[in-house]
């Protein structure tokens, strides 16, 4: 008998289908956006302490790494928005076999938003 027993639970082989990947992107983008929120409120808080302080902060963020971060944030927002609309369409509109189409549309929207912001930056 082989000794390499594996746990009897689902692994990537069981989860490898479009809807599960869509779930994962939605969940991870949501967590990442939640982690970003304190930073966002910190930046807004600077504005409350006067224009000069906000200006210092904004100048400090005007560097390539932050621009890349902004691009990432928009992509996360686009992914989370599209994923959320996908779920609402699935659960509230009459049921049809379109969940893979919806996942593809959500992925396409995220990609388009990512390219548009990258070109605008």
């Amino acid at each position: 008998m082989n000794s390499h027993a594996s746990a009897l639970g689902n692994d990537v082989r069981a989860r490898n289908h479009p809807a599960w990947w869509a779930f994962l992107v939605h969940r991870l983008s949501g967590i990442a956006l939640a982690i970003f929120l304190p930073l966002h409120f910190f930046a807004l808080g600077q504005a409350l302490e006067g224009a000069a302080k906000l200006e210092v902060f904004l100048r400090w963020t005007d560097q390539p790494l932050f621009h890349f971060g902004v691009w990432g944030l928009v992509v996360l927002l686009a992914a989370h928005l599209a994923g959320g609309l996908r779920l609402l369409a699935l659960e509230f509109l009459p049921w049809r076999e379109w969940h893979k189409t919806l996942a593809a549309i959500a992925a396409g929207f995220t990609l388009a938003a990512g390219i548009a912001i990258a070109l605008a930056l």
Partner: protein
Amino acid sequence: MSGNLSVRVWRGRADGAFQSFEVPRYASQSVLDVVTHIQRKLDATLAYRYACRVGMCGSCAMTVNGVARWTCRTHVDKVAADGRLEIAPLHHLPVIRDLVADMREFFDKWARARGSFRGTKTRHDGFAAVSPASRKRRAIEAGIECIGCGVCYSACDTVAWNPDYLGPAALQRAWTLVNDVRDTANPERLRAVAGDGGCGACHTHLSCTERCPKQLSPTAGIAGLKRAVTMAALRGTL
């Protein structure tokens, strides 16, 4: 078609291990054929479960190369292109021995979801007239062919994450009864599927819909229950 299949089969209980076998490969060979060959020719102590062999009874479901499937109608050619098979019992259920999962929890949850019909008529009453074209009857039609194989339950991650979760099959069964105009247990049924382990716990991974061997969409039923529970809560009838 010739040569051998390299087959790893789960032996023992949950703390068991895989055992390797070499099985001759044939044309049109099902995974159940492979398991049967091992039990009849190589190791008579192998425990597994099957009955009809034609996709009706739902008793032969196992995990094949990591994916829950009905083994009687899963061709080896479809799942073992490289000549390798890994066969384990269904996930998320206690293992009795080898490839036999204990289905009690699975069916107990059907009962907890109020999955049995409760009508008011007797044998002396006439038949209920239900139009096959009605919206409710068509909703039933979409979910009624479940054979209770447990593939959706094994494929569902929410079942593993939330042990109270009733699971796709039980909830789909509840949905078919919610749409049954003859049934009288619905306020109670909606309460049964509205709790922490009910339809609201579904994360819409759609693994049940992806893996159902009968191509049913339990997610559709669960989404319907979510809407029905929400409406009942708004009306104050939950």
